[in-house]
């Protein structure tokens, strides 16, 4: 249900909730199943990598406010992939608001 809330937002092409081992818990949208699986696996690895790098930045900068990392965005030429927690979204650039999508991702990822 909550994934559909994301899917109806302008620009969102596909949404996926993934598990800690990279498998798909739930998905919605226009991507075929094998691409959704790849997206989930990639997103889980990317989450780990970003979390690791965030810990490093936190450690060396001694600044609060970096860790624990919440998500990431990869902004491509025409498509953007954005993630918060264990949710990931594929978005067509130029349609809708990335800010609004990230805000909703943050809200839904805690459900």
């Amino acid at each position: 249900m909550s994934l559909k809330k994301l899917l109806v937002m302008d620009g969102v092409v596909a949404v996926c909730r993934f598990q800690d081992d990279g498998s798909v818990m739930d998905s919605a949208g226009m991507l075929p199943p094998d691409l959704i699986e790849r997206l989930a696996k990639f997103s889980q690895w990317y989450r780990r990598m970003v979390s690791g790098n965030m810990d490093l930045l936190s450690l060396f900068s001694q600044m609060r406010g970096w860790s624990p990392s919440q998500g990431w965005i990869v902004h491509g030429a025409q498509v953007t992939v954005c993630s918060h927690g264990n949710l990931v979204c594929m978005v067509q650039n130029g349609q809708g608001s990335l800010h609004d999508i990230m805000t909703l991702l943050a809200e839904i990822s805690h459900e």
Partner: protein
Amino acid sequence: MTLDQLMDIPGALAAFTYSDKGDLTDHRVREGTEITPQVLDLLAHSCVANMAVATLEARGWENVTGQKGFEPLQGFSMVGLEWSAVVNGRCGVIVKNRDVNYETAFEAIHACAAA
């Protein structure tokens, strides 16, 4: 040192050079391996990322702990089950683990980058 000379180091399966952004600029691959230029290009991009992260780590470590000796970085290696990739900021070589000599490999890619 040239790429052809890099291919002479023990266990070498492939040798390559790449730009600052990770784009493959030249390569050699031993016949019979499954390494393709596409894979080398991916590897080169990961080398740029790994060297950047390792620099972050080296610099941060030296600043926070006061322990020197890491910067300037000489290279990074990813150790797989059968192969290792040994890289620096410009050159890389893939070597078979059973024949690998890490120190020779690091020296060789250093000489290649300096050329």
